[in-house]
């Protein structure tokens, strides 16, 4: 995470009984990461807009019966939260199990096995089997792009690809279509990805995908390694003007 400049943090926030000073406008997740408190996330990615869709980062807020997503919770003075409890662990474990039950995430032959955030979350939350019935949806694989492929059976609808394409690459190839269990990622106007002229082939969507839904073609089981940190790197480099010709300015 980038070091901040400007005024010192002065918003007192208590996380798991320990008081920290937060910056004004900071989210609880940003604060937690800055001070080294682990809160699990899936849809969130530093450098992209906040989506708050996966609910894995939920925390207990003192005085509020509802759980709040840390990624979208802006700090306020005297905020008091709990990030680890039996209830939260159970809640997060169920989310992970439901994600597994909803798709066909068969780790055994997944390109991303070993480099998959969903697989890691299952391990972190002691998911040793799925309590729910598997939906076994018959989702289409889109291999029409010359370089990349999309396996919707492995998609968790985190919308990282949608956001990175729109917000960082500026191409807006990806969108969400339909709702609920019918929800799916579509390219262009629900076209085969390879036919979408707006796609610049930059591959950022593939790099940020947390699972094996988006991958480089030609990768076999466990051979796909994602690089979601590329977004934070790009955002920082843009802010610092790293690509500007400084000599010309001088």
């Amino acid at each position, binding site marked *: 995470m980038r070091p901040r400049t400007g005024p010192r943090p002065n918003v007192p926030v208590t996380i798991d009984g320990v008081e920290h000073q937060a910056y004004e406008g900071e989210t609880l997740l940003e604060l937690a990461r800055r001070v080294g408190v682990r809160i699990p996330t899936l849809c969130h990615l530093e450098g992209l807009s906040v989506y708050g869709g996966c609910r894995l980062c939920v925390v207990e807020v003192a005085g509020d019966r509802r759980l709040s997503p840390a990624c979208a919770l802006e700090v306020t003075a005297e905020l008091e939260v709990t990030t680890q409890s039996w209830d939260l662990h159970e809640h997060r474990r169920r989310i992970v199990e439901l994600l597994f039950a909803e798709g*066909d995430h*068969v*780790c055994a032959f997944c390109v991303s096995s070993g480099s998959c955030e969903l697989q890691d979350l299952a*391990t972190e939350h*002691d998911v*040793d*089997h*799925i309590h729910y019935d598997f939906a076994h949806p018959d989702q289409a694989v889109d291999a029409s792009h010359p370089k990349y492929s999309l396996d919707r059976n492995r998609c968790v609808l985190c919308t990282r690809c949608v956001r990175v394409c729109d917000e960082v690459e500026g191409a807006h190839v990806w969108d969400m279509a339909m709702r609920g269990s019918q929800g799916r990622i579509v390219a262009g106007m629900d076209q085969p990805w390879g036919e979408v002229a707006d796609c610049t082939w930059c591959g950022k969507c593939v790099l940020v995908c947390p699972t094996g839904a988006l991958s480089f073609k030609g990768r076999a089981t*466990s051979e796909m390694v994602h690089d979601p940190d590329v977004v934070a790197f790009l955002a920082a480099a843009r802010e610092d003007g790293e690509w500007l010709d400084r000599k010309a300015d001088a």
Partner: protein
Amino acid sequence: MSAETAVDETTRLRVATAWLGGCSGCHMSFLDLDEKLLDLAAMADLVYGPLTDTKEFPPNVDVTLVEGAVTNEDNLELARAVRSNSRYVVSFGDCAVSGNITSLRNSMGDPTELVRRVYVDHPDINGHFPSEVVPALLPHSEPLHEVIPIDVYLPGCPPSAERIWTLLSRLLESLAAGEGIPDLTWRGPEDLRFG
């Protein structure tokens, strides 16, 4: 149940393995226990499984590792026999735990079409529906816990020999000491993990 337990059968633990709808990779990984198999032999008798020549699932088994999803009628029958005759049943590997590759057929619907394609349409000669030896497929391929109650889950495709030994040695030591299932949540290089 005396033939295979020549040693003092009142104290020897009885371990079995079963192979349902899986590729036998979990059993291969079991064999990868290598020299640990000697330790296992010192602790327990292996009374049933693809590695023994016993036809019927024996009674009074302490621990049974069950590999594979429940995908056909034979699997279902054996799974039920395992449950009736075992104190503890371990769902052994991703197919048993989650259905895994064996259950990919579920999204294709009616298995009759699948069988037609493989046995009737595909062969160059004499294509016909199998009527003997090959057991009929169930409408859906299910994880083991959908069919029988499970005591311990051991995911992995396959679970590594180290992971199998971590579970099996702790479980057998606990049973030998007259205790039940030990605390099996563990962290470290052999984290429980799918795939």
